[in-house]
């Protein structure tokens, strides 16, 4: 009882401190120097209607490369940690079979989900989506396929191929930027186009397509590995 009262008192104290901070806070009326540069020159330099994408892919392109690498490492570590011996593996685990309805309906829904995912990452420079969100949606399509048939085996080779090809392509585009234009991941190697068109913003849609495919493959890899690990004998 005393413990609970103490916790509540502590929380109230913390709340009071934060309330003070919140009250004393005054937002910046003007943008800082960096933000100002982005706001003024972003659209002109990059040609993307979505400024966040412009910053994520071009100005801070190396960060994105790092994030994708981290995701790749996570997927690799999960497959490594869940690796099991062949003899511990139950090929056709007796699970409750799916309803026929889900099996049939998933064949209609999965293509729609994939289409939405592709739309999200191709339009990354125009809409709030982007490679990561589109990749997550595609991975959820793969998850629905697994859900419809628990013993469904998508081959790891296909996933690995998609992933490595898109990873290499990402880096290659970056290097092309050094050769043809100003520097690594410079997006002016393709024409900038008109602001707001699908084929605008130079190389950003291409990069985001590869990022989306890579993220989708990595997340699907995680899901497939975890789902496969359910078949392990205990």
């Amino acid at each position, binding site marked *: 009882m005393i413990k609970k009262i103490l916790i509540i008192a502590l929380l109230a104290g913390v709340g009071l401190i934060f309330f003070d901070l919140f009250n004393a806070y005054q937002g910046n009326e003007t943008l800082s120097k960096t933000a100002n540069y982005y706001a003024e020159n972003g659209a002109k330099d990059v040609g993307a209607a979505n400024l966040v994408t412009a910053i994520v892919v071009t100005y801070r392109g190396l960060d994105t490369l790092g994030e994708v690498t981290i995701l790749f490492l996570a997927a690799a570590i999960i497959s490594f940690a869940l690796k099991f011996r062949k003899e511990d593996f139950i090929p056709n685990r007796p*699970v*409750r*079979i*799916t309803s026929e309805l*889900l099996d049939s309906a998933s064949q209609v829904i999965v293509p729609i*989900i994939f289409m*939405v995912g592709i739309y*999200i990452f191709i339009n990354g420079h*125009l*809409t*709030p*989506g982007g490679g990561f*969100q589109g990749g997550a*949606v595609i991975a*959820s399509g793969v*998850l*629905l396929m697994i*859900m419809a048939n*628990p013993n469904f085996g998508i081959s790891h080779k296909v996933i690995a191929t998609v992933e490595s090809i898109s990873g290499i392509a990402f880096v290659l585009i970056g290097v092309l930027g050094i050769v043809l234009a100003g520097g690594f991941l410079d997006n002016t190697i393709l024409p900038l186009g008109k602001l707001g068109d699908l084929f605008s913003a130079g190389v950003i849609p291409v990069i985001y397509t590869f990022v989306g495919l890579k993220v989708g493959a990595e997340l699907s890899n995680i899901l497939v590995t975890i*789902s496969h690990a*359910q078949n392990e004998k205990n």
Partner: protein
Amino acid sequence: MVNIMLTIAVSITLLSIVVSMVRFIKGPSSADRIVAFDVISVSSVALIAFIAALTNRIIYMDVALVYGILGFLGVIVVARYLERGL
């Protein structure tokens, strides 16, 4: 005029989310809670559409799409977990 009507619609949708929240808190079994989760996520799709209309930005509709897809998948995964089919 339209803004007032949309505001009324948003308030009713919010009320529906709150009422479903009551079922989520009470719900005797896990299945009850997932029904509430389903209704909340579908109502939230409508709520996001209303917010998009009030701010007059079409790009917010993409969020509603992603929301709809993942809400559906969440319900299915939990149901499969409950019936031991995962």
